[in-house]
């Protein structure tokens, strides 16, 4: 590619990506004002994380630990994606990756196992 081509490609890219980002934002704010709660929308968790200090002493449930911690590094994988036995392996690995305490890991595993089986 010569210099002129590169500059043209850069321009196209910038315009394209700006347009894509705007569409994303606009699409969503439109939806927000229209406020039509679709079934799909209702099915999703309206998760709001309190900006308070995390208190390890408070008795967090497995589902809470899962939804708060497992989103940090990657997209949340649905409990139904794996069998309870497979979750046993994964949580043992993710306890290491996520730096969970043993208790947190046991709670997450109990939640994932029961959610996977149903």
């Amino acid at each position, binding site marked *: 590619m010569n210099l002129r081509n590169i500059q043209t490609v850069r321009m196209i890219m910038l315009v394209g990506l700006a347009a894509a980002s705007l569409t994303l934002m606009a699409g969503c704010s439109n939806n927000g004002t229209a406020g039509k709660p679709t079934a799909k929308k209702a099915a999703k968790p309206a998760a709001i*994380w309190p900006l308070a200090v995390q208190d390890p002493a408070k008795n967090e449930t497995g589902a809470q630990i899962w939804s708060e911690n497992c989103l*940090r590094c990657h997209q949340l994988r649905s409990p139904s994606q794996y069998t309870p036995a497979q979750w046993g392996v*994964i949580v043992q690995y993710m306890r290491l990756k996520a*730096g969970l305490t043993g208790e947190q890991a046991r709670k997450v595993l109990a939640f994932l*196992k029961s959610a996977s089986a149903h």
Partner: protein
Amino acid sequence: MRKRITLPILLAAAMAATAVGSVRAADSSNYQQLQKKYSTLKVQMQAMQKQMAQMQKQMAAQQKQMKAVQQAAPSINERATRRAIKRLSRQVMKLSEKEAALEPGNIQVLIAGDVNVQFQNKSGGNSTFYADSSPMIQVRIDKNIFVNTAFDFYTASGQAGGSAADIGAANINYELGDYMTVGGGLITSPIGGIVGNYNPAPWNRWLVDGSLEDNLLPPNELGIWTRGGIPAPGNLGYLTYFLFVSNGPEFIGTSGVPNQLSYDNFTATQNAKTVGGRISYLPIPNVEIGYSAEWASPTQSGALTKSDSWIQAVDFNSYYFNKKIEGFVKFRGGWTWEQVGQGGITPGNPTTPPALGNMSNGGQIDVAYQPSMCGIKYLDKMMVAFRYDRTDGPVTGVQTPGAMHEQRYSVGLDYWLHSNAVLKFEYEFDNVPDQHGSDAMFMQFAVGI
């Protein structure tokens, strides 16, 4: 004659008298019976009235009770449900713990990893397709022992072509309790946080190309370690730690003149070891701030050159997931400083002392937004990502591969078909001084297994 008349009259009178008498007798017995019936009926009625009154009383009492029960019902139900849930979750915990304490022979194996197919077009170079498969065999030996082996099979990019295989992980981990795991083997390095936490798997990255900061960071550590998570003092969030001792890095370069540090530390010369680790603090689950450092005494096989090197890095990771923004925003970033000290030469070795004593540094800021809650088909699966990254390396002397003066802006558009399958498109604006035009375009289809 009188006799004749008198008898019948007498008979008639007698009959009449008997008849009247019998009528009178019949009347009185009826009356008595009626009276008897009446009085029994009356008694019965009075009993019934009593019963009715009692029943009414009972009904009123029952209604009262029912009202009270109805009023109390929600709280009783709630409490009972909550208690039942607690009981159930305790049972589930117990069961899963029982299940976790596996019987001998009940080993659980999971094939995981990722596959990715990529197309890249770097200006000034040839465009190329690239494929990579990194299967992982993860094994839970029992509730305390976890073993991980990862391979990497890939087509070598560039004009040379071909394919290659590598090993990405081979480690054994033993849980020593709730707050500590010890392990050994080959593992992704925790230094810099970003590589260890997200990088090995393309399905959990937003952009295709690795960052310039990655080049400064050791990809792996081959050694022993201890790691875990503990509640922070005063219960103010959590702390995580990962401390290790591993084989030291090695100087590499042409004809015995070291000009690069290699962290592929599969062999250690001169007993040189790396000591390092990373600690991070999570005040809330969605904010993590990390600091990592490693000290090593790099050597060069054959030339026996010895020096010391320091890497320090800070990193942060956070996300905000809220309906107000119809989804989530994720921020990641980091900065790495790498210093290589003055080199020394083993007496009797003819190699010229290399020009060491220099500093490379670099870092990145990554932002991604996905309107996952907007409820609009296709749009909720799209993610826009942006990254700024740079490195500043020494012009001469020792530098890690890629550590030169370079800064880039990258923009990406991802479509998440699944939580673990993503189509990525990225354009990288590269600003390499005096070497204009190494912009690059990438497309990738990455799947996590």
